[in-house]
């Protein structure tokens, strides 16, 4: 749509600007402030320059958390995206069952994050959980509180359970927008199932899949509550992801300087990815309009 130039529109945006500035800019400035200062208590602060940044960049603790975080996000994407597309392809196209599927699939998305953690904590406990109990009965030596690999598996299965539906719902919305004529044309050309997927469905889902991948990347990159409830970051530090580590540092140990430097670098990574996301998305919007 062609828009008119009108700088008075700023007045309409002003309330949002004030509100978000209050809840985003002020706190962020506090973080910047802490990141360059040191304190020995009593609210006396000393200029520390880039000391905290240097300490954080070279810290093994941060590197390990970052490494775990990357690994987690990659595993999540590799499992959830193909699975989500697969589920979307199998969903009923319309009618009563389509509604039933939509409602049931959206259910995990609307559960509070810590309840998701609680559900899985209960579900996978060896003594009282269905999953843990079944695995134990099958003779699998499974215990997510003491074995790092089991903890990882539990956290990943939990995230797949929690968020695959998001990918599926978005892909489904993309599939719904394909006109029936495309499929008829493919039928006339005697295209196989794979060809239909590769040349009709996949290109049409491109836009929504991009959103799904980036949302999943972002949200898995800042995951906190669910693994925290299930494993508490353990055993040891095996499932201590970036956010868990940051909260531990900032609120648990009250190491303000390092935590602030950590926060800023963390935020910068997110900002970079958001920018890529935004650029690609607006380009897609423009192509569609053209």
């Amino acid at each position, binding site marked *: *749509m062609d*828009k*008119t*130039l*009108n700088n008075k*529109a700023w007045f309409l*945006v002003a*309330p*949002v600007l004030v*509100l*978000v500035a209050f*809840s985003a800019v002020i706190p962020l400035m*506090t973080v910047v402030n802490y990141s360059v200062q040191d304190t020995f208590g009593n609210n006396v602060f000393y200029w520390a320059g880039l000391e905290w940044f240097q300490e954080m960049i070279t810290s093994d603790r941060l590197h390990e958390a970052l490494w775990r975080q990357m690994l987690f996000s990659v595993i999540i994407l590799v499992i959830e995206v193909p699975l989500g597309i697969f*589920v979307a392809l*199998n*969903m*009923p196209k319309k009618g009563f069952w389509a*509604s039933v599927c*939509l*409602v*049931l699939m959206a*259910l*995990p*998305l*609307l*559960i*509070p*994050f*810590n*309840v998701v953690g*609680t*559900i899985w904590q*209960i579900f996978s406990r060896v003594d*009282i959980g*269905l999953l843990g*109990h079944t695995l134990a009965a099958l003779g699998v030596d499974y215990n997510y509180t003491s074995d790092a690999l089991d903890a990882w598996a539990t956290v990943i299965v939990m995230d797949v*359970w929690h968020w695959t539906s998001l990918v599926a719902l*978005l892909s489904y*919305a993309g599939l719904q927008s394909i006109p029936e004529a495309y499929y008829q044309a493919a039928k006339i050309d005697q295209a196989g199932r794979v060809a239909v997927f590769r040349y009709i469905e996949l290109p049409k889902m491109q836009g*929504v899949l991009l*959103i799904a991948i980036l*949302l999943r990347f*972002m949200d898995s990159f*800042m995951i*906190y*509550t669910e693994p925290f409830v299930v494993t508490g970051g353990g055993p040891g530090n095996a499932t201590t992801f970036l*956010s*868990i580590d*940051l*909260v531990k540092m*900032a609120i648990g140990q009250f190491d303000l300087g390092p*935590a602030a430097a950590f926060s800023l670098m*963390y935020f910068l990574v*997110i*900002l970079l990815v*958001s*920018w890529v*996301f*935004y650029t690609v998305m607006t380009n897609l*919007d423009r192509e569609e309009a053209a």
Partner: protein
Amino acid sequence: MRIRTSAIVMVLYIVFLLLPIYWLLNMSLKNNTEILGTFTLWPDNLTLRNFRVILTDPAWYMGYVNSIIYVVMNTVLSVTVALPAAYAFSRYHFIGDKHLFFWLLTNRMAPPAVFALPFFQLYSSIGLFDTHIAVALAHTLFNVPLAVWILEGFMRGVPKEIDETAYIDGYSFPHFFVKIFMPLIASGVGVAAFFAFMFSWVELLLSRTLTSVNAKPIAATMTRTVSASGMDWGVLAAAGVLTIIPGALVIYFVRNYIAKGFALGRV
């Protein structure tokens, strides 16, 4: 044949989704001796004790009341300020509009963990710590951008000619906006409100950091089940079941817009 395999896939997937939820429900209807002592697939001695504990103890049910208060405050606040802004983004070019739109998005993407500590200090210093409004304001960080994006997506679908015709007919902007424009994007407002409600409801890190007693959300109250006598699993499960209900109730109404909402209005 194809229809049947896809039905099997769907059934398997949905069973996978519902099994953990069923297990929670199952546990919420058992007493603790049955939970810990025996392994049963459904409650042998069906009991509503766990739910009764929650609904009669103020320490428990106030958690729900607190959560609902700040969630509703946040929803109203987010949608109200987002409406004019979304209109501006969908209709006008203005200096810095693209940068502003992007900046809003980055707030949706900002990790709450980064903001937890500064929020705590900000709201403590202005005397709002442990109040509902503090949590409601903190959640606008990600809900206002979300609402702006969703509403902008819906507003783009309304032809511009409608605005122009209304102005020619002599409507003032506020009059036009409320009388003509709002009804046209009613479903958009509903979806934006639903998502603001949902994301505020499921968030825990900020709401827990900003409250201690008076505005403590249910999600944080759930940690109370750990006591000297061990874990009260039944009550924990019942509390979990009760937090799922609000989402489950409204989801039916927005089922066709869920994808659009999660995609920030871009489907």
